[in-house]
């Protein structure tokens, strides 16, 4: 299960360093700029871990920690404090408030991860599946199949075979979304339609979510087939991504 981490710091740079530190692991990092925002996100998302700065405007980290510990549904979320102040009084104060650990800035992302691993288990991210041919790419967690502008029967047969093999590697990597990008196809002939119908059928069998990108003409063609009559056509990969 993806671990949810809340990074609360008024510095965009520090939030970025924290996010980057977790990027190799199966984690979702959400960010807040101050204690008020942090409390609100903590209540909404119930993160598995909070990385909390002390010196912040609006509401500082010590105040946020106090409020967090006062809420029964949030008080057990482990907190690692980040502080620029290493003085013993400061450290004693935050330790007494029930933080699980603290880090004195300056710090490196790897040092933060070492501390986190003592509190929660971090699972490395699954490696991206190997791409079967130049027509395939990965955008975020979505596999994109971009059909070439002109293609003959042999090329389309090769793409179909690669596609079916890629479904297996996608399943292993935990990917379940595909965008078929046909914007560059110059001629929508029966060979292209046959490939598209085959992709639709394979996606349905593998329970993979499919979206189309292409011209309005392609949309009209696809309306004529029972298998594809309910699909909408998106103008761009970015637009298609938003429809999942």
């Amino acid at each position: 299960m993806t671990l949810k981490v809340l990074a609360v710091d008024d510095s965009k740079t520090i939030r970025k360093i924290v996010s980057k530190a977790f990027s190799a692991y199966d984690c979702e990092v959400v960010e807040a700029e101050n204690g008020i925002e942090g409390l609100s996100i903590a209540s909404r998302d119930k993160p598995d871990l909070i990385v909390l700065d002390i010196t912040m405007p609006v509401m500082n980290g010590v105040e946020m920690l106090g409020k967090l510990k006062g809420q029964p549904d949030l008080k057990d979320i482990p907190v690692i404090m980040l502080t620029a102040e290493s003085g013993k009084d400061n450290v004693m104060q935050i330790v007494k408030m029930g933080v699980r650990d603290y880090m004195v800035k300056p710090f490196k992302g790897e040092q933060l991860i070492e501390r986190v691993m003592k509190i929660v288990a971090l699972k490395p991210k699954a490696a991206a599946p190997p791409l079967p041919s130049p027509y395939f790419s990965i955008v975020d967690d979505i596999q994109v199949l971009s059909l070439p502008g002109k293609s003959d029967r042999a090329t389309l047969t090769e793409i179909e075979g690669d596609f079916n093999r890629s479904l297996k590697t996608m399943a292993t990597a935990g990917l379940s979304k595909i965008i078929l990008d046909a914007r560059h196809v110059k001629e929508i002939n029966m060979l292209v339609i046959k490939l598209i119908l085959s992709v639709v059928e394979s996606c349905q069998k593998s329970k993979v979510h499919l979206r189309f990108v292409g011209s309005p003409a392609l949309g009209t063609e696809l309306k004529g087939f029972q298998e594809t009559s309910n699909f909408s056509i998106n103008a761009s990969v970015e637009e298609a991504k938003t429809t999942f």
Partner: protein
Amino acid sequence: MTDISKLDLKGFCANSTRSVFHTMLSMAVSAAEADPSMELSGSKVVGCVGFAGDVIGNICVHVSKEFGRVMAAAMMGMEVDEIEDDEINDVIGEVSNMVGGDMKSKLCDAGFPCVLSIPNVTSGRDFKIESKGWMRHEKIAFQHQEELSMVEVFIKFIA
């Protein structure tokens, strides 16, 4: 309580600045004695944090705008030409927070309890920060390759 005039402010600043540059930016800087009249000319960015309590004071980190951009790129893991001005300000503010936080901790441990402000950042061309009436005022110059930067400390005993 230590006598404030005996605190090694230059040593505190030099160590914490070197540590921040080394850890956060993977950059080596060497500290040097600064001329009391030293100022950075041209376009520059200055990050300051204040501390208040039994002692009051400020720590200001002065860097040229261009070096600020190089520092921001190093800290954020980006290319220099991708860096926006607000990212330079954020990084210089954070560096001053870390240097100031370390100084504040040293002061507290030496018997001068105080609290730290959030950083403020000023950027512009050919401006000068003047501050009067302090018991101690130290300037420390830092060099990374050809780039010269400066950390300035102002401090006064109150209690």
